[in-house]
């Protein structure tokens, strides 16, 4: 089974780094790129075409929703996992409008994050 290639995008440096370490610790997952804002996220997603992009909902440059829309256009094979500090309905609705259906609230156990990345990465691209 080939490695699951993952892009991480978060404007908080501590979250970025630990998320990378958590996912890289899994033998079947490889973090191929890390972005700190929306434009960088879009550029890196187009360049690397990862299986999964883990996106912060609130990021400088238009937020996770804009990143999700652009990734869907430029790298249609990339599945998106929203990783958000917000658990409210409005944030979820905003992402759903951008085509994001997988949603984890920051603070979810690492195991749940890993499990969600695997589930999204292994499903056939729609």
């Amino acid at each position, binding site marked *: 089974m080939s490695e699951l290639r993952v892009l991480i995008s978060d404007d908080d440096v501590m979250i970025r780094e*630990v998320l990378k370490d958590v996912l890289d610790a899994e033998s079947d997952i490889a973090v191929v790129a890390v972005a700190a804002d929306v434009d960088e996220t879009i550029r890196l997603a187009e360049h690397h075409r990862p299986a999964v992009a883990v996106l912060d909902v609130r990021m400088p440059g238009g937020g996770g929703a804009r990143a999700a829309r652009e990734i869907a256009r430029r790298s249609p094979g990339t599945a998106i996992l929203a990783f958000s*500090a917000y658990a*409210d309905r*409005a944030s979820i609705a905003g992402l759903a409008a951008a085509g994001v259906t997988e949603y984890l609230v*920051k*603070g979810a156990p690492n*195991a749940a994050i890993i499990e969600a990345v695997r589930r999204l990465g292994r499903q056939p691209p729609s």
Partner: protein
Amino acid sequence: MDDARPPGDDRYRLLVQSVQDYGIFMLDPGGHISSWNAGAERIKGYSAGEIIGRHFSVFYPPEDVAAGKPVRELEIAVEQGRLEDEGWRLRKDGTRFWANVVITALFDEQRKLQGFGKVTRDMTERRNAEQALRERRRLVGHLVEAQEVERRRIAWDVHDESIQSMVAVGMRLQLLASRLPEPHASAVGGLDESVRAAIARLRGLVSRLRPPELDRHGLVEAVAGYVDEIAGRWGLAHSVRADLTAEPSPEAAITVYRICQEALSNVHRHARATRVDLTLATVDNGTLVRITDDGVGTAGGDAGNGHFGLIEMHERAEAAHGWLSVTSTPGDGTAVEFWLPILPDVPGLEP
């Protein structure tokens, strides 16, 4: 026998002369004072002997006299039958008082002007009291606003900085635990649990400081969400019934939310209730909210003793130009009812 017929001139004169609270006097058609009473003497400081025969413009401040106000007021009274005015007038000693003045033109049966009746009230104290009240409401309004701004700032700081950092720490601890042998793994796992609990508490704090639903979903969702969360946590049966036909302004909405928070917290702390019910309705261009519980019903008594939460609720409602009332029957629960106008405060509309 006397009682059966109308009082004579003497008795009317006695009545008018004795009234203390109103200056009641007459002017001749040219505006010269022709009668005087005790109230006028008390308010203006002139005795009848000093003032009768003088022109009534002596009561007006120089700027009004220069602007022709006394003469104009008589002209309007002649045209329209009467004139009412509020403004500054002068006492004999030159000090000013805030007067309510009614000038009535007096015509005889041939519609010939006989003079004017003038009734003057000293409104200075009322005006001062009203101004003090307005000023107080303005200050409370500013205070409430400043408090909201500060709460929002704290909420963002906690949310964006502290919680994010703690989430990262928790993830790091879990990663560390997965690499450690026992018993170290369990110890670190315990630390992660503590961090997780702290994050949950901070999230609760953030949503109390600045409920996100209020910004995005409006009042009813925010209040309903809060009641669900808080009454659920306290084990209170609860219901929220909302029938809003108009969404209040953001300022009014936050005030409604804060008063609900305070009222519910009172139910929790003092009422020993088993259930709490909340209704919101649009009434008279405002939002009417009723919060009832089935507790011991002592909150009303606390109001008289200056219970802080109740004072704060009253002040919030009044600063938003609404009202709040608390009815409490021992053994029969407490009802907090308040109404706030939907429109934000427009200072220009105040009298």
